[in-house]
């Protein structure tokens, strides 16, 4: 649809005619400041279409303060290749005229045609409301309402659907949603919406059916019990009648009586039998006593005989025992003698042995004492020699230090002499014979030589004197040193008692020799008396003392027997003594046994003698023979009596056995009990019958079967109703499922083209984003890529600016869709997108430019500078009113 011309007159801001001509088929930008009339123009277009020309509720179309005006709009547009001219005048001289081709429509016809053409409705009465605006309501965006998309879409849904259907070439259901709603409502009356469980009347019907079933089961069991009772009543009555007729207990009573009589008779016989048995028992006792008595007599005689034999035997025994005692006595005496002899031999052997031992010991001790004395003597001699040596050594002893001092002094003296000699003035003289001179104090003759060690005066007799002073140094010192050393040497020698060093050396040598001798002598002594001489002496004394003791002991022994040599050894004598002792003990025991036996035999023998005497005394009583005869006679009589009684007892016993009184007694009991039971049963049954009768009467009064029939009837009705409702519920559920499924399928198919268009714009605004469309064709959640991956948000949760942008592109998509369906599309944006930032606005411009290649777009703005790069020049509305 393309609007080519718009003319308004007496319309709101424009009292004077204003005309927009030569509108572009694509974008048309109208600019102007506020109050310039942009909104008036938009209002004019809307009124021309939406408001009925006859409407009296359009006063707001009037110019201010001019109620007489007749707001007029004239529009030229072209759609579907057909040019239209619409003229509409409101409030005064109301008129509507639509011309296209050769057709000219007036009034309602024209408006009807328009509404169908564009897809909107008129208000029934009053001013047109948003709900009537349909497709134009969606595509003509009023100021500040671009973000509101759901309501306009809802108002246009039917038209959009139709358009979609046409575009799909299919037929959607015109009344489908109503049907679906009806079915859903009907279904939800019977089934819960969520779980599909029975509810409402359906649930009640099921419950009632179940309750009746339960009640029927209850009454069934009650009826079964009742029937059972009726049956047992019948059975009891039959039994009762039979009993009443037959009276079975009477027969049993008669039988009981009969049995009692028979039992009485046989009990008499039993009494007789008991008496006979008692008598028999007495006879038995009597016979027994008599036999005992006779046995007593026989026993006495036998006893005497037995005792006589016993006595003889015992006598023999006693004699044998006495003999044995004598034998053992003799053997005992022999054994005692043998034992004494053996004991003496043992004593002598022991004595001789002691003697020999002591003699040997004495000899040994004496030898030892002698040896000790000899050793001691040698040791004493050795010790004396040692002592002499030691004294000698002590006399010649010279200390090593002294010897060395002597040697040193001797050496120094020699050294000084040499030095003196070396330094001394030698004076060699040869005097004529007889002549003498004095050198110093010495008078010399002949020849000789003197060394002058000091100033010396030579007295030449007669001649005078010559004083010679040696010229060498320190001769005086040497002389003093020599004198000192000589003094020292002399002192030492004096102290030592020696004449010279040589003597000292000599003493030293002999002392050393003595020391060697002492060592040898003390070794000899050590060998002889390792523990010293005193030990040797005490050893010698001890041997001597012990020898004396042994000699004393020996002296004390009795004198040796002459035949000592023939005595056996001690051990031999000991075993001989032992054997003799054993033999003696053995024989003594045997002897005492034999003596005991003999004593016992004697005692027994004496007792037997006494018993025999007593027994014989008994046999010799005077009335014994008479008493024996009497007893024998009595026994014979008793036995005869017994035989007779036994015959009686056998006869009675037979009689009782034949009658079986035990069975008879049981019969009596049996018949009695039978009779009692029948009587009792009869009474009980009568009571039971009475009880059953009452029970059944009262139960019968309940009309159980009729109640059951009523319940069955009600249950059948309830079941039928439940089944009907179940069928209805199932059918409705099925139908609802089908309807929803089909509708969903259809919706999906319908949405596909819309989605396609929407995506085309969406990619410009939010690359990679997708916008869902709900079943009312309204935009749903927007899914787009973000830093966190995919994120999805409801349309209403978007920012105002974004919602506005989405609102515009959704509308453009609807327009595309409508266009494809061959529907007229005209897009009006009144001051839209004022909340978009520059970036988005730039994108929106691309979107709009693209859309304008398919649709005519009228864009009204008070910010023309924002739209300069839209590729169209803005028409300034300020100049229109002029």
């Amino acid at each position: 649809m393309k609007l080519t011309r718009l003319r308004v007159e007496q319309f709101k801001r424009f009292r004077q005619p204003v005309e927009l001509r030569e509108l572009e088929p694509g974008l048309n930008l109208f600019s102007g400041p506020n109050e310039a009339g942009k909104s008036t123009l938009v209002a004019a277009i809307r009124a021309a279409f939406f408001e009925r020309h006859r409407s009296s509720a359009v006063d707001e179309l009037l110019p201010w303060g001019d109620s007489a005006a007749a707001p007029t709009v004239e529009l030229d547009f072209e759609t579907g290749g057909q040019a239209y001219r619409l003229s509409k005048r409101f409030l005064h001289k109301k008129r509507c005229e639509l011309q296209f081709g050769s057709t000219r429509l007036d009034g309602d016809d024209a408006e009807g045609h328009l509404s169908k053409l564009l897809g909107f409705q008129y208000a029934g009465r009053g001013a047109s409301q948003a709900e009537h605006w349909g497709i134009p309501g969606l595509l003509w965006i009023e100021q500040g309402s671009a973000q509101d998309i759901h309501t306009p879409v809802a108002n246009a849904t039917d038209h959009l659907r139709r358009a979609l259907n046409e575009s799909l070439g299919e037929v959607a259901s015109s009344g489908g949603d109503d049907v679906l709603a009806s079915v859903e409502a009907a279904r939800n009356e019977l089934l819960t919406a969520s779980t599909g469980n029975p509810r409402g009347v359906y649930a009640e019907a099921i419950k009632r059916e179940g309750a009746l079933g339960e009640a029927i089961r209850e009454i069934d069991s009650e009826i079964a019990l009742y029937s059972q009772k009726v049956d047992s009543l019948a059975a009891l009555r039959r039994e009762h009648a039979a009993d009443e007729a037959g009276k079975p207990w009477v027969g049993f009573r008669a039988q009981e009586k009969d049995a009692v009589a028979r039992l009485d008779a046989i009990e008499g016989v039993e009494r007789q039998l008991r008496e006979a048995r008692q008598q028999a028992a007495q006879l038995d006792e009597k016979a027994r006593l008599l036999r005992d008595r006779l046995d007593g007599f026989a026993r006495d005689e036998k006893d005497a005989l037995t005792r006589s034999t016993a006595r003889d035997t015992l006598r023999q025994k006693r004699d044998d025992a006495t003999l044995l005692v004598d034998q053992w006595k003799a053997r005992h005496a022999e054994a005692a003698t043998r034992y004494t002899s053996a004991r003496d031999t043992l004593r002598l052997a022991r004595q001789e042995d002691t003697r020999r031992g002591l003699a040997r010991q004495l000899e040994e001790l004496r030898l030892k004492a002698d040896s000790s004395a000899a050793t001691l003597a040698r040791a004493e001699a050795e010790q004396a020699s040692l002592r002499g040596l030691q004294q000698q050594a002590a006399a010649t002893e010279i200390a090593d230090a002294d010897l060395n001092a002597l040697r040193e002094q001797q050496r120094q003296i020699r050294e000084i002499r040499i030095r003196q000699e070396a330094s001394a003035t030698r004076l060699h003289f040869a005097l004529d014979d007889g002549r003498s001179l004095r050198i110093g104090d010495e008078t010399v003759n002949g020849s000789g030589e003197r060394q002058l060690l000091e100033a010396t005066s030579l007295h030449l007799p007669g001649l005078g004197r010559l004083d010679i002073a040696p010229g060498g140094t320190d001769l005086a010192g040497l002389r003093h040193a020599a004198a000192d050393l000589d003094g020292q040497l002399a002192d030492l020698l004096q102290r030592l008692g020696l004449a010279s060093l040589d003597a000292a050396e000599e003493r030293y040598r002999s002392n050393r020799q003595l020391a060697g001798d002492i060592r040898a002598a003390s070794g000899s002594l050590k060998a002889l008396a390792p523990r010293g001489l005193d030990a040797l002496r005490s050893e010698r004394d001890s041997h001597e003392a012990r020898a004396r003791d042994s000699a004393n002991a020996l002296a004390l022994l009795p004198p040796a027997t002459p035949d000592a040599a023939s005595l056996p050894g001690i051990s031999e004598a000991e075993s001989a003594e032992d054997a003799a002792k054993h033999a003696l003990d053995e024989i003594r025991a045997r002897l005492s046994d034999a003596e005991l036996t003999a004593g016992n035999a004697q005692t027994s023998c004496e007792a037997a003698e006494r018993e025999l005497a007593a027994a014989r005394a008994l046999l010799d009583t005077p009335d014994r023979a008479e008493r024996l005869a009497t007893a024998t006679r009595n026994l014979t009589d008793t036995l005869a009596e017994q035989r007779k009684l036994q015959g009686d007892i056998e006869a009675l016993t037979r009689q009782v056995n034949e009658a079986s009184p035990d069975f008879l007694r049981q019969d009596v009991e049996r018949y009695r009990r039978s009779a009692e039971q029948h009587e009792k049963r009869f009474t009980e049954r009568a009571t039971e019958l009475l009880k059953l009768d009452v029970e059944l009467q009262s139960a019968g009064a309940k009309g159980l079967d009729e109640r059951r029939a009523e319940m069955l009837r009600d249950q059948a009705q309830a079941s039928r109703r439940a089944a009907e409702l179940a069928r209805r519920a199932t059918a409705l559920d099925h139908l609802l499922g089908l309807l929803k499924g089909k509708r969903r399928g259809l919706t999906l198919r319908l949405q596909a083209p819309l989605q396609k268009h929407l995506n085309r714009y969406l990619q410009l605004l939010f690359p990679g984003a997708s916008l869902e469309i709900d079943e009312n064709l309204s935009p749903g959640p927007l899914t787009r890529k973000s830093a966190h991956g995919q994120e999805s948000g409801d349309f209403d949760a978007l920012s105002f600016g974004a919602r506005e942008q989405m609102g515009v592109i959704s509308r453009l998509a609807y327009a595309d869709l409508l266009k494809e369906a061959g529907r007229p599309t005209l897009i009006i944006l009144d001051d839209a997108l004022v909340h978009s930032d520059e970036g988005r606005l730039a994108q929106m411009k691309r979107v709009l430019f693209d859309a304008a290649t398919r649709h005519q777009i009228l864009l009204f703005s008070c910010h023309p500078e924002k739209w300069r790069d839209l590729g169209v020049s803005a028409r300034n509305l300020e100049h229109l009113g002029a």
Partner: protein
Amino acid sequence: MIKLLHTADWQIGKLFGQFEPDEATLLAEARFTTVAHLAKFASAEGVDLILVAGDVFDAQGVADKTIHRLFNAMAGFAGPWVMIPGNHDAGLAESVWTRAERIGAIPANVTVCLKAEPLILARPAVALLPAPLTQRITYTDLTEWFAGADTPAGLPRIGLAHGSVQGILAEGIDSSNPIAAGRAEQGRLDYLALGDWHGTKQVDARCWYAGTPETDRFRANESGQALLVELDGPGALPRVTPITTGQFRWHDQSVALHVSSDVDQLVERIAAFGPADVVQLSLSGHTDLAGHRCLADAIGKARGRARSLLADLSALRLEPTDDDIAALHADGYLGDVIAELQAGQDGPDADVARDALALLAGILDEQRASAGAAR
């Protein structure tokens, strides 16, 4: 000449759960009114004796009120009534009869034969040989004793029994409570009045089932009658005339629909049902939605007229025609749904599909109607 009215199987206390409550009540009520009609008829006809051959009551445990109501309903005939217990109301040790006796419900002119012994009446002078059931089920022939029972000479011998005459039923059916065929002849009876079958049936010249006087089930041919029996004297063959006594006619009709004229015919038939008709209708075959609607209308209307109408349409296949769908304005996906439901009638859930289709058609109809009304 003696005039007897032979009836049986009143089944007093029987209820009818298969019908709607109000209908069921009326049908149960009818059993009493029919007895009253019988009594009135007997009085009017000058009947000498009314014989009731068992199953007077439908069950033993009926309420005392019911017992009283029955005997009150019989008050219209003051002559003698003779009845025997049947299998439903057998003369047990404690039974509906002992209770009726105890509560004093049985009027003097009514004789209940609880024992198998001859009953000699003075007016009319007849010898009655009853074979009452004293157990719910017997397998011995309780009429066996008739032949051996001597009755005063010159009196007509009339047997009264309840059970199945052997040899006239299909093999294996109702073999309990047997009655030998030819019992009337063999027992030297002038007439043998039988009960148990709910349809009137002649067994032989002297032996009849009266049937129930008021039909109580769909499968009971020749029911709703009583027998007027005229005996000229001992040995003479009885003249038996069936009398219609039933208030309601029970119809069990199965109809297969194939072409639209079948529907028209059926609609006519349904339209013919009146207040005395109890109808059970089983439909099969197929019809279009228009036909279905016609039928539903007809059935709905007939329900208002007939005593009761049970219609089973579950075997009737719905085949909407293009016209149907167009008429329903079932465009778009509704059309798809209808097509799918139609096809679904061949599937395993045919019933569900059929019901759903009928429902959908109904809803569309309603919407169209309301849309039409709005327009």
